[in-house]
């Protein structure tokens, strides 16, 4: 058995998942810091929630409501 290949795979997995988590952890920290700085120094009264997704949720909600009313 060529242990080199399999060991290489294991090491790549460890380093890979490690890098992914390390990077995204940093990104979480940096994003939170950025959001806090923005909230303090660049307040934005006209901010909105994510538009299209919000509309989609509203549409689904409306459809569900209609569906229930029809069943009554």
């Amino acid at each position, binding site marked *: 058995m*060529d242990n080199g290949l399999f060991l290489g*795979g294991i090491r*790549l997995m460890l380093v890979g998942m490690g890098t*992914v988590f390390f990077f995204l952890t940093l990104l*979480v920290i940096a994003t939170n810091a950025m*959001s806090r700085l923005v909230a303090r120094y660049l307040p934005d009264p006209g901010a909105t*929630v994510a538009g299209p*997704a919000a509309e989609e949720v509203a549409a689904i909600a409306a459809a569900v409501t209609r569906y229930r009313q029809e069943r009554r």
Partner: protein
Amino acid sequence: MELLLELWRGSGFAQMSWGQAVMIGICLGLLYLAVVRKFEPLLLLTIGFGGILSNIPGVEIATGDGLLHLAYVVGIESGAFPLIIFMGVGAMTDFGPLLANPRTLFLGAAAQFGIFATLLGAVGLSELGIMDFSIREAAAIGIIGGADGPTAIYVAGKLAPHLLGAIAVAAYSYMALVPLIQPPIMRLLTTREERAIEMTQLRVVSRAERILFPLLLLLLVALLLPSAAPLLGMFSFGNLMRECGVVDRLADAARNALINIVTIFLGLAVGSKLSAGQFLVPSTLGILLLGMVAFAIGTASGVLMGKLMNRFSTQPINPLIGAAGVSAVPMASRVANKVGMEANPHNYLLMHAMGPNVAGVIGSAVAAGVMIMFAGG
């Protein structure tokens, strides 16, 4: 008479091999999936058609200086097409839900375990002598689990161009199968109570945050993992054009005319790699199997991470949104929403799932960077 004979000899009927006939059948199957089943039609239709054109003997379009080969060299070998598509995807992506709840990035991280587990599976099969994948090939195959077409094509073009056709077909097919593959795994790993968890409404996100986030992402990736910077750089660039509000005409070009034109040629060029000689080999079967495993493991990891985070979080987290961490935007979010509503009809998870969903795009691009750096070096 001689001329008629020459005509016959020149015809595709006379020259066609069994392999080519089978490939044309497979490509017609891809067209069927695209048109009738509506499976990722933008890519499966173009790939399928390109595949037919490239398997007809005597048609000089996928070889030499034919149009499809030209598109392959200019757009895939150079990595230009996947990068341009990533820019367009960036110009379409709304990071709002992610910014409202950055912790969901962890879900996008966990779901990438599918990539590396598949890599391990590929080298394992090679160790056992069943397949014969090198570490580069295994890495390219693993990326299928990232559930992100352009990323898979970009990595395969760099690490294993001879597997590009099979990898692209597997990636887009499984992305289309997300609504079939994911729900059973999600139900298996969660209780009805967990699936019924309602999440608190997302906070509003300011314009400044939206503008600064792509820059933050670019700088972080550039400084930590330069090999992922082309992909995430173009993604950030597209998103910055979208959010900054001063170059709307460029953002519009990136997410409409440009991405559509590039998609046509990307699909045809990928299809030109579906030649019988490269596709009808045992390794394709291995790739398709491993790709399926990658999706399943990625989904499971995301859900399990969601359970873990729910346990340690003050705010409730529905573990179903972890499954959206595999990418496959926005299909995976819709699946999480649908499975959640089965358990609790008031449970609108769609927006909450969009956070891990776009985090999955970032996560798999980071994983791609690691692969290119270590396996490609």
